[in-house]
């Protein structure tokens, strides 16, 4: 009797928790999208932002967000994946490994504003990069690297050890086993982790305030020479991203339609983060099925 009641109670508590989470998410998404989407149109997405007048767009900010994301990923994915492989497969248990693992954990729990300050000191000033895409991407790498290391290590460790034994027992070297058995099996997990972290990077503001800067020049999308100061590809120019733009418009904006701009930007930001999350799941499953040969 008592056990049955406890059992029922536990079920109710879990369902309740799940319900609270989903309702919060749906409410939040609904609120942001309903208040923002009405302002989002082609014109909003493709025109320059304005500082005083009505009708500013987010073209450059959107581009900057993507560009910083790509540069961050170029820095952090190879380093993070290799680091994760090292920790999962090569690191011998001992002091050094513990130090590395603890460092990775500490790095991933640093507040992003602190990472931003660190970036300001090291990349912007000491390395002389100034407020730039590259400084922003480096700061985001500091913040993203531990996540990718962690995801890679966890995905590799989740593979049953019998898979590794199977390959080693066939007279295959450790490295070839890592390359052809372990990494492919871990790939869907790694990719999902990378895409989810991309969502986080895309939405990050605090770490970029002091590194990528608060302003962006009106870009000339006809100039693709990366050394031209108006080129969208120039990695040494300051670049305000979408989330930084939302923060700036909300806190310092003086244009009459600032609510609309902030809400519209928030809606666009949320949609892209959602796309990253959904793609992570879909592509992860697709690749898993392709590798395993099941449909």
């Amino acid at each position, binding site marked *: 009797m008592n056990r049955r009641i406890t059992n029922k109670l536990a079920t109710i508590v879990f369902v309740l928790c799940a319900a609270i989470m989903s309702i919060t998410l749906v409410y939040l998404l609904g609120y942001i999208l309903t208040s923002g989407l009405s302002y989002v149109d082609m014109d909003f997405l493709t025109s320059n932002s304005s500082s005083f007048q009505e009708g500013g767009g987010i073209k450059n900010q959107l581009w900057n967000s993507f560009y910083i994301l790509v540069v961050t990923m170029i820095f952090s994915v190879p380093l993070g994946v290799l680091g994760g492989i090292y920790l999962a497969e090569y690191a011998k248990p001992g002091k050094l490994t513990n130090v590395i693992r603890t460092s990775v954990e500490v790095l991933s729990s640093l507040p992003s504003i602190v990472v931003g300050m660190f970036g300001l000191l090291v990349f912007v000033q000491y390395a002389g990069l100034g407020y730039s895409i590259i400084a922003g991407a480096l700061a985001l790498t500091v913040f993203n690297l531990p996540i990718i290391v962690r995801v890679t290590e966890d995905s590799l460790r989740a593979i049953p050890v*019998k898979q590794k034994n199977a390959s080693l027992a066939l*007279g*295959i070297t450790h490295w070839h086993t890592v390359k*052809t*058995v372990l990494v492919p099996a871990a790939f869907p997990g790694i990719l999902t982790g990378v895409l989810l972290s991309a969502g986080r990077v895309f939405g990050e503001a605090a770490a970029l305030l002091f590194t990528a800067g608060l302003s962006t020049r009106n870009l000339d999308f006809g100039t693709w020479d990366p050394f031209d100061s108006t080129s969208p590809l120039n990695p040494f120019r300051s670049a305000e991203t979408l989330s930084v733009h939302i923060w700036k418009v909300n806190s310092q904006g003086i244009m009459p339609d600032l609510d609309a701009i902030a809400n519209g930007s928030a809606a666009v930001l949320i949609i892209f983060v959602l796309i990253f999350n959904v793609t992570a799941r879909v592509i992860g499953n697709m690749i898993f099925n392709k590798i395993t*040969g099941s449909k």
Partner: protein
Amino acid sequence: MDMVENNMKTKPLDKSKEINSVPLLQLDELSVYYGENHAVKNVSMPIEENKVTAFIGPSGCGKSTLLRTINRMNDQISIARYEGNIEYEGLNLLEKNIDVVALRKEIGMVFQEPNPFPKPIKENITHALKFMGMKKKDMEEVVENSLKQAAIWDEVKDRLKSSALSLSGGQQQRLCIARALALKPRVLLLDEPTSALDPISSAKVEDLIIELKKHYTIVIVTHNMEQAARISDNTAFMYNGDLVEFGNTSQLFTNPKEKRTEDYISGKFS
């Protein structure tokens, strides 16, 4: 049942062979330690060519450890260490400078739980061949031959591209045997290969083992004494890391020399 009878009938013939055969592997004063734990203690025994040698004994007696020492899979465990000799072709397999990659090509292994790669059936076989640098056109033949040898070709020939995970447990285990055979090993180490299988699949794998011993030297660890009696030529009984008794299978089962062997095979402890 049939098999036991068959074994009995051919026994005199087998014996005459036994005298002439030189062991392919000779274990000599072999000890394996896991840290402080002395898991295998001073084991000496021959493993004869083209025979099935069974390791039996209760759980934790060191029989799997002993098996995994022969192809150095215990190297995976950082605290494992060896003493003694395993002589093979004039080499001591426990020597530090032995190329374990080359060793494992000659001494293949099949595990307790079927462990095909989560890849198409064919790629399970070609995985190691690709690593060895075999040409694509030569692979087709090896794939077919090894699947035939493992008596699974007829069941999979029409779906070589579907996932190995879609096979039943017994089929997966025979695929794993085929995968090991594709490398043309001389010795096959089988670590309780049927303990995760249903009786019908087990019988198929047993038949296969008897067939395979014509061309390969087989060492099998088993929990199942009937299985050891049915398929092996020689049996080693281990207890607590010691090799209690080693000998001809029918002799060991019908007329054991040691009290502990007798108690174990008569089911007094397990």
